[in-house]
Every structure is written in C-alpha cells, then in structure tokens.
C-alpha cells in the first residue's frame, strides 16, 4: 500500500465522515452557542447570597408593594406581596420588569444641554451646578406675563407639598399637575362637596365604568382583581377593550358622547336632566334606549355602586364638565364611596393660559398616562425653557433643553401616596435597593436650590412619618408576613420610620358611614348644564376628517414613563397587544376605505399625519379609529428615534378635555 496525497485525502474524508458520528460537531455547536452568551463584556450578575427585600412600586400611582429577590444585593426579580391586601401578590407587567429600568438604553447619566445651532441640534454635557446657573439666568430674565411652572404628575406626595412651597418662591412660580391622573371622578366629587372621597371597591356590588381600563391597568391590580368576583361590571366604551371583553356587560358608545348616557341615567335616577329620555340618549350616543333603562335600573337596585370615569391612560381624561356629571351619578345612587382619604390638590396644566410658561420644570414621576407633548406644548411661551428632571432622555426629556438626571426606580428613597382605588388614605416608602448613579439629583432638591430654599427629601419624609406617628392613627402593614401593627403601638417615630424603610405601608382605618347625602338640586342642575355644554361643543365633526380617532395605551408606558425593552419584546413577540402606531378599524370602515388588515395607511388629523399599520377588528365601532400610543419606540428605548410623528403627537388638544377624541382621516399609504 502506497502512502501518498490520495491516501491522505481519503483518510481525511473518512475522518470528516466519522466526525459526524461523534459528539464533536454537535457538542461544539451547543457549547459555542452558550459561549456567545458569556462573553466577558456581557454584564454579569454578581454571585452572592440570595435574599429578599421589600419596597413599593413607584412607576404608576397604584403603589403596589414589591418583593425583590436579590442576589448579592442586586435585585434580579420583582414580585408582588401576597400577604397584603394592597397587592394580593400581583404586580402588573411594567412593575414586574421595573428593576430593568436603571439600565434602560435611554438612561440619562449626566446633565446635558440641547441647543439648536444653525438649525442643527447640538448637545453639550454640563455639571448640575452649571445647569442650575443656566436656569437661574433664565429665571432672572423671565419676560412679563410668563411664569415658572413645576409640573408634578404625581400629586398627593410630600414632594408635591414641597413643590407648592417652592413654586411660591420662584419668579411667578406656579405648581401644576398632570392633565390626567387616576382618581379623576373622586377628585371631582371632592371639589363638588368639599369632602375627600375614597372608594371601597371590595364593598361594591356594581361598577359602571366609563372608558376606564378597570381590569387592564387601573388602580392597584391585586386589589381590583381580589374584589372582581363581588361586583358586576358594566363597561361603557367605544371599543371591545380587554376590560370590556371581561366585563359582565359591554355598552358600546360613540366616542365623546358618554356624557349623553350619563345624562340619561341621571334623568331616570333623579329626574334632574329632563329631556334626556332613553330615546334621546340613543340618538346621540348610539346606546339602545332599553340599555339606558337597564343600567339605570341596575344602579337604582345596587346596594353599593360606583361610577368610575377615569378614562384610558392613552385616551385622555374626561373634561371637568363631564366629570361633574359622573360625580353626581355617584351621589345619586347608594354608593361605595366613603368620606375618607386625604384632600387632593390638583391643578391641571390646562388651567394655565396658552403660551404662558417661560420655564417648565418637569418632575420625574409619571402619572401613568400617555399625555401627548402637544397638550403641554400649547402652554409654553415661544422660546420657553423646558427642564426635564428625569432618569431618562426620552419622555418629556425628548423636548427638553436641559436634562438633569434623577435617580431611577429603586435607586433612591421615594414615597408613595394614596393609590387612586385605595379605600382609605395610605402612605408608603419605597426604600432604595441599589445605589444611585453618581450625578443623579433628586428633582425636589434641585428645584429647592433654584428657589434658594435647600431641602433634603429624606428629611422631609422623616418629618412626615413623625407627623403620622404623632396622630397615633391608622395601622402599618409589613410586607414581610403581612403583620398589621396599629401606629399607636410604635413607641417612637424612629420605630415607625424603620418599619416603613424595611417595606411596609401605613393605611388609615376604614371609616364608618357613607359619603355625603343625596346631591342637591343645585349641584345636579350645574352638572347637567355643564355636561350639555360640553356635548354641544364636541358635536361638530370636520367633513374632511370624518373618522373619530380615540387612543389607548398601556399604563406607565408612554408620556413621561419608560418601560423595560425586554418586557415589551416579550409582549410584542407573543402578540398579546397591538404594537404602538397601529390603528384598529371596524370591517365596515375597512371596506369603505379599501384598507386591508396588515396594510399601511396614513392617519391625518388637524395636527399632522403619521404612518400606521391597519388592524381590522370588529370590536371597534364603525367610523372609529382606535390607535395605540404606548408603549412607543421611545419609551422602550429600542429604535432610533422616529423622525416623523407618532399617533400621540397628532392627537389634538381639545379645550379642557386634553385629547379624548380627534377628527381624523385614514387613507392608503
């Protein structure tokens, strides 16, 4: 046998064939796949002791207690706390991935200034001192008729009180709140009667919800779901939302005509809105006359009813005029509303004159709503300075001249005020679980510097806890184990402070007795007149834009809020929700406009146009376009910023109801 090149090749061929029958290629495939996940530059969690820590979620107003599983002091997963009635073990998807937010791709790490130079945007980093000096310079030269405004999207906090004090110290300072906060109906009730109101959902037997995503991102999810089996839910809204699908009864209504149904109900219950017969309601709102009568009968028969009209986080709030009517309905029935809670100080930004803000200081907290920037922008004077005091570059930061980074969720001691659906006043601390990044500044402390009134947030929070302790009222629920301790059993305020810092919430006891007596004739009359006024004003449609655009968003995923990209990827890939910038229309509308499911179209309103993906959905009323405005590409920090408009950008601000319904046109792209 001769050994030559040929033999070698034959041997090599045999080896190659043999290799396929060994583990070598298959095992190396697996190993190299794992190897690529373990490259040295991929951040790794430290190894360490596995512990449990507790905090409170501050990502939306719901205030869910949180249990963090930590490895070597690093939170690696968050879950709800089963032992408390505040959470019942539930967190929403945003909260479940909240520990990702400090590492969000659009995290602001240094203060910076954005300036337009020769038509181009130039960005330059600066120190917090330089940022403060730049703002002070602007404040000193504030033109007459312009104001300095602190925008607080989470009213009811100790921080909010600090802001109110500081606003008085700033040149023509104003304190304003978000155009939309959950608890709008209760806030209206309080302003009509002068008594703080809270709802006892656990005691309700009937809930009539006007466009509020009760089962899909409203209130504290664990509390709402725990009470769900006990109440009958009637959902009034123009589309078959997830809440509508899970409700006992869905009542479709033309967008913007919810007040007509409320007037009809008030008429049947009190006789106050004469003329609003079920037939008239049907002609205005599309709700069948027999449904109007049926809801009224159910409200009359209920022992503890609730009418909630807080609206969708992406859909805009009902106007104060409409809210008066919903509040009056709560007074007209045997209600599950209690005289309880803390007074709500809200001053929606709509109350300011247009083009009046010279310097806008935006706090980091999000109301959970996807407020379109246009709603805020119309209040800005030309060349106004917008300062975003947020941990992120996006949200309101996208429109800011100055960004001063704040600590992200879980990075600093925060506070959590009463949740919108809480049956009584509450307060919790959100102790930090990870160290804040150097360079992050507490927004209240930064604004205090501008006002020349140094403030340390933790000191103010401690004073608040001391005041709670001094009252001796209420009880403290510890998240670890759910143990309940009356406040009077804490010997010192330090003991109470320590308990709250380890994960606990304070809550007021449930009050005895019902809310105010039946509504006065004057109150009813005023509510009816204002709602009629609103209906008349909203009745005109633009023939060039015959469709009605309504928007929805997942709470705390749009506006000034950011969301974990990982979470969003999961839900997008599983198609659990429509992605942002999709527009759902009824099959009849799609046929009429010759638009196909999955096709591209251009959505146009008086404020601009934007491309959308069409979804044909029989759960949307004909003539209506339902669009998703959150999460957006910006809030997930995923894509390079959309150079064009998003649906949120083209929603038209409308008087005192920020952006509920917009006339729109849809055509094939």
């Amino acid at each position, binding site marked *: *046998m001769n050994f030559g090149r040929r033999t070698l090749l034959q041997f090599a061929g*045999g080896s190659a064939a043999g290799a396929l029958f060994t583990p070598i290629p298959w095992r190396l495939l697996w190993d190299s796949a794992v190897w690529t996940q373990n490259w040295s530059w991929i951040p790794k969690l430290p190894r360490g002791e596995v512990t*449990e820590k507790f905090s409170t979620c501050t990502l939306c107003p719901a205030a869910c207690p949180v249990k963090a599983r930590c490895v070597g002091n690093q939170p690696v*997963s968050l879950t709800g706390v089963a032992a408390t009635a505040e959470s019942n073990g539930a967190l929403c998807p945003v909260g479940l991935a909240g520990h990702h937010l400090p590492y969000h791709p659009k995290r602001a790490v240094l203060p910076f200034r954005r300036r337009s130079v020769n038509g181009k945007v130039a960005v330059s980093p600066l120190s917090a001192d330089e940022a403060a000096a730049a703002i002070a310079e602007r404040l000193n030269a504030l033109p007459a008729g312009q104001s300095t405004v602190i925008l607080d999207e989470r009213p009811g906090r100790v921080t909010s009180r600090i802001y109110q004090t500081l606003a008085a110290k700033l040149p023509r300072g104003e304190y304003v709140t978000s155009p939309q906060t959950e608890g709008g109906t209760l806030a209206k009730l309080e302003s009509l009667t002068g008594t703080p109101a809270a709802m006892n959902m656990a005691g309700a037997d009937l809930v009539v919800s006007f466009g509020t995503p009760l089962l899909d991102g409203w209130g504290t999810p664990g509390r709402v779901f725990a009470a769900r089996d006990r109440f009958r839910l009637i959902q009034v809204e123009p589309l078959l939302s997830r809440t509508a699908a899970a409700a006992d009864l869905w009542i479709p209504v033309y967008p913007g005509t919810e007040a007509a149904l409320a007037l009809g109900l008030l008429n049947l219950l009190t006789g106050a809105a004469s003329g609003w017969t079920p037939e008239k309601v049907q002609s205005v709102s599309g709700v069948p006359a027999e449904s109007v009568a049926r809801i009224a009968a159910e409200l009359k028969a209920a022992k503890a009813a609730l009418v909630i009209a807080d609206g969708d986080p992406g859909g805009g709030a009902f106007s104060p005029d409409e809210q008066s009517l919903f509040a009056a309905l709560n007074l007209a029935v045997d209600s599950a509303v209690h005289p309880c809670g803390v007074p709500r100080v809200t001053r929606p930004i709509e109350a300011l004159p247009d083009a009046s803000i010279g310097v806008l200081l935006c706090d980091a907290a999000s109301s959970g709503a996807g407020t379109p920037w246009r709603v805020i922008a119309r209040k800005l004077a030309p060349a106004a300075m917008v300062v975003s005091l947020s941990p992120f570059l996006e949200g309101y930061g996208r429109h800011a001249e100055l960004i001063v980074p704040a600590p992200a969720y879980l990075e600093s001691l925060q506070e959590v005020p009463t949740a919108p659906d809480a049956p009584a006043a509450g307060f919790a601390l959100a102790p930090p679980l990870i160290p804040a990044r150097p360079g992050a500044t507490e927004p209240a402390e930064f604004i205090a510097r501008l006002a020349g009134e140094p403030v340390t947030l933790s000191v103010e929070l401690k004073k608040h806890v001391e005041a709670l302790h001094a009252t001796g009222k209420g009880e403290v629920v510890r998240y670890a184990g759910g143990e309940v301790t009356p406040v009077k059993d804490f010997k010192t305020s330090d003991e109470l402070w320590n308990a709250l810092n380890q994960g606990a919430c304070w809550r007021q006891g449930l009050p005895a007795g019902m809310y105010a007596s039946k509504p006065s004739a004057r109150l009813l009359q005023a509510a009816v007149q204002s709602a009629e006024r609103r209906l008349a004003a909203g009745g005109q449609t633009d023939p060039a834009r015959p469709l009605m655009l309504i928007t929805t968003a997942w709470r705390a995923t749009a506006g000034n809020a950011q969301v974990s990209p990982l979470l969003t990827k999961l839900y997008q890939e599983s198609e659990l929700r429509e992605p942002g910038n999709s527009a759902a229309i009824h099959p009849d509308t799609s046929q009429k406009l010759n638009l196909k499911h999955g096709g591209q179209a251009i959505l146009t309103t008086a404020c601009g146009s934007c491309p959308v993906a069409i979804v044909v959905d029989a759960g949307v009323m004909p003539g209506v376009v339902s669009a998703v405005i959150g999460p957006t590409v910006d809030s997930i920090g995923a894509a390079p910023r959309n150079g064009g408009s998003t649906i949120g950008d083209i929603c038209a601000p409308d008087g005192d109801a920020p952006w509920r319904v917009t006339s729109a046109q849809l055509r094939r792209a």
Partner: protein
Amino acid sequence: MKHSGKISFFAGFAVMLAVGWAGFPRLLYRGTPQPLSFSHKVHTGEKAGMKCEDCHVLRASGSFGGVPALESCAGCHAAPMTGTAPEKRLIDNYVTPNREIPWLIYSRQPDNVYFSHANHIRLAKLACKQCHGDHGDTDTLRPYQEDRVSGYSKDIWGSSISRISFGRGRRDGMRMDDCVSCHREHKVSDSCLACHK
C-alpha cells in the same frame, strides 16, 4: 492495492470515532479539585445520621440556602472531632480564620435561570436524588469539571457525552431541555417565564 482507498477512508473514520468518543470528552473538560475533601457518606451514614436538608436548608422564607455556609460546619467542627487530615485542614484553613470554603458547585445554573428548590421539594415532592443522583452517598468529592468552551459544569450537560443514560432512574443532565421534558411529563407549566424571570 485494490481496496487501499477504502482502508484509508475507514481508518480515518475509525480514528475519528475514537477521538470523538474517547479523547474529546477528556479534552473538553478541565478538572479542578474541590478545596476540601468531604464525605457525604460519613455525614449521612448511621454514625452522624444527618439528612440532606439538615445542611442544605430551605429557609423559612422558602428560599434555598444552597451549599451550607461555614458556620454550619463550624457548629460541629469548631474543635477537632475526628482528628482526620481533612478535618484539620477545615479547621486550620477555614474555621479558625473564619473564611468561607470556596466550593465549586456542580449543579450551578447560569444567571438567567430561576430555580426554586421549594417548589420542587415541597410541591413536586421530588427527592434530591432525582436531580443530584447519588451525590449524597459519595465518600469523596469528585473534581469539578468545567467545560472549557461554555464554562458550564459537566453536570449541566450530564455525565455521558452522548446524553444517553440507561436505567439510572433519574435524569442525567440539567440542561433546559431536561427541565422542559420533566415539566411536560408532569404536566406543569413550561412557559419561558416559569424559569427566566
């Protein structure tokens, strides 16, 4: 020669089979001895009569304590009990200077895996042996074998490079597909978020 081509081919084939099945596994893993010799058998045997959960505790919170901390060992071995060489090393090198023993964990899962011992022991009522084999009866600690490419322990892949095990009464390996197939067999959730939280 008439069949020389076939002979060369099959020689290459056979050599590769030998290399692949006998040489490759040796090459793939890097063995590292444990810092201390430890006999599970002595501790769980009649004399000491301990159970797995005496040292590998499930805390009151439901979380798993994992490999016991030094204080568990020091509880009995603060002073010599048996006078053996490993015990002397334990006391001199770790207990006296109060230094944790840097055990190498055979069953260490990657960081992205959330595994609840409480669920598997308390709810599913699985015996430790089901996943860890006869580890509790061994007299010495075998060297920790690290896959040179992936960095994982050999126990994750399983003792057999082919991942075929016969009649062992337990699963050999702790890869994701081992978890998934067991979950499917027992008709429990095998969704991504069950383990990747």
